[in-house]
């Protein structure tokens, strides 16, 4: 396969991917919604930068387009939209999370180890690719963890976007060999999903006068 890790900026790529992981743990520790959204933007920018370096290394033009899309949509448009939603529902802080902050972070470390164990079989053949699969699953699990440990609907939406970034890392480790139409479709789905979630958050705010998802637990049995 095309090994995008075998040229000079591979250390820089590794650095950017590591920073993406750091921002994910950062999101688990942050309390202000604005910073959580900005941390997501930073994570997307790190992934975009890694993709950009990869495009330079492999010389594939379509990877360059994907890098541009990532930086533009995930680093800018989506965070901007989420900040707008946040301002208009007038909620700023995650006041009472479902799981306390120290436990959230400890749990996050545990999930990182779990991801490492689950994806290790793939690391045998090709350690570099295996490592990015581990990062991918870690981001997915951390995104899920963010969703279950926080109560605000916006934080849950960001959690879902972190999950999506995890998938993006998985696609990145195959050097984006997927057909271009699939990549475009994924980007389109992501945009629509964010809009749907944003509109639903408005409706939750209008109906409940709050975006705490603990209200959303009436349906049982």
């Amino acid at each position, binding site marked *: *396969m095309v090994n995008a890790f075998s040229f000079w900026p591979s250390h820089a790529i590794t650095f950017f991917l590591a920073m993406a992981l750091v921002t994910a743990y950062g999101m688990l520790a942050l309390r202000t919604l604005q910073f959580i959204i900005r941390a997501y933007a930073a994570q997307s920018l790190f992934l975009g930068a890694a993709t950009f370096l990869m495009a330079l290394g492999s010389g594939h033009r379509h990877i360059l387009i994907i890098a541009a899309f990532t930086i533009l949509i995930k680093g800018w448009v989506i965070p901007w939209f989420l900040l707008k939603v946040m301002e208009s529902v007038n909620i700023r802080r995650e006041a009472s999370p479902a799981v306390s902050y120290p436990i959230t972070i400890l749990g996050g470390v545990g999930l990182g180890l779990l991801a490492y164990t*689950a*994806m290790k*079989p*793939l690391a045998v*053949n*090709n350690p570099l*690719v295996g490592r990015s*699969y581990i990062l*991918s*699953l870690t981001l*997915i699990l951390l995104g*899920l963890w963010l*969703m279950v440990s926080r109560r605000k*609907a916006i934080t*849950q939406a960001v959690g*879902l976007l972190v*999950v*999506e970034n*995890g*998938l993006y890392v*998985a*696609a990145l*480790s*195959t050097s984006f*060999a*997927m*057909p271009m*139409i*699939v990549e475009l*479709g*994924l980007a*389109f*789905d992501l945009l*629509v*999903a964010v809009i*749907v*979630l944003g*509109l*639903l958050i408005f*409706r*939750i705010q209008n*109906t*409940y006068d709050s975006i705490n*998802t603990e*209200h*959303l*637990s*009436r*349906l049982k*049995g």
Partner: protein
Amino acid sequence: MPVWLIVIPSLAISALCLLAGTSAAIRRLSVLGSIVSLCLGLALTVLVLSSGGILDGSSYFFLDALGAYLILLVSILALAASLASGDFLEHEAENEGLGINSWRIYYALLHIFIATMLFVAIANNLGLLWIAIEGTTLASAFLVGFHRRRHSIEAAWKYVILCSIGIAFALLGTILLHHASLSSGLDTGLLWTSFIETASRLDPKAVKLAFLFAALGYGTKMGLAPMHTWLPDAHSQAPSPVSALLSGALLTSAFYALARFYAIAVRSLGPEFPGNILIFFGLASLAVAGPFILLARDYKRMLAYSSVEHMGFMALGLGLGTPLALYGALLHAAGHSWAKGLAFFGAGRILQARGTRKITKASGLVATMPETGIPYFAALLALAGLPPFSLFVSEIMVLASGFGAGRYWVGTTALALLVLAFSGMTHHAIQMGFGPVNGSERKTPKLSDGQSVPKNLGWLLIVAVFLILLTVLGLRVPDFLDAWLTVMTRIILSHA
């Protein structure tokens, strides 16, 4: 004829519904579009079956016997939902004062939703398949939350969040499969048809992980336990015609996606590993659904848990992996689609007439509103698995092949859990059909009964067609369908 034509009528109608001026025009457009879609589906089916192979085999879109089956199941139910939505919305419009814009949005979303499901059936590229399945979630989110009540918004939020998370794992599975082909030096371009040809050369470790993630992801969308938690909320809170589509068509589409992955996994790993995963999810779903059906108090939630049960049973049939079990599972998909569709359409009419979701308060339906009560009662019996309906036959097939393959524990457990669900279902069916009618509820029903026949024509047509289909397939599977089902089992299993 290019196969992507199948999604065009739905998309076009969706756009036209946004422009239409009156609710009557929207209703007519919607039914017309669904009929065109169904005819196109039939034409493509005839083409595929007579050619005996695949249309447009090596590109992004293709159609084989399996895809044609899904197209037909989706478009039959879509036509019925289109007919049923008219009466449904008219009633809601009177009671809740919905304007023309609600009509436009409802029908536009409904047809986009149908188009995404048809798209699932023709996607050859596994990435596009994933995009289509995620598209179904996004298109139906606001249909689930159509009533702007607290419960519907809660259901819609859970639906989008849980299904998007679940399906994320399916994308990871797809990427891993892609990784498996790249690391074996193959360039499949993510096409299902090339994966099938090269499956034996794929890296088994990666395929194992890929199938596990795909089963988690598409299993979530299919409503398999323990990932089913979104399903009872979404199916009970959505408008009833939408519930019917969610249950009868959307879950079937997710099953279809899972079957495509199973076909690759079984050629790469043999039947053991993928089979055991599916049998686990299948039995878990049966185990979760049984008690909830038995103890249900809300009849739409009861139908939703019955979907969990039937999907679990289809996963079980796929997991057993014998030609007979697979034949049964595929036949079950059709029976479930029609019986559940009929039950949800009926439930919608009952909800509108009685204004309650409680089973105990909606009793005595056969006497008070026979036009709705009798078909609803029949649909519940079909879902319980009673003869002469086709679900009985397909359940026997899957169970028999389980015992025949020497998997006595699996067969016995499944049988016991089915009996549990059966007793719950028949108990509630008899309660709702023949239970005592309270004086206060004897008042003139707001809908259906007492109306002149032409106004109920759509409903009676749905009832007649679905009951005839269910009964005919229950008595004898026609030769052409038998051949078709056999071709499909061969597509999924390599050795059949």
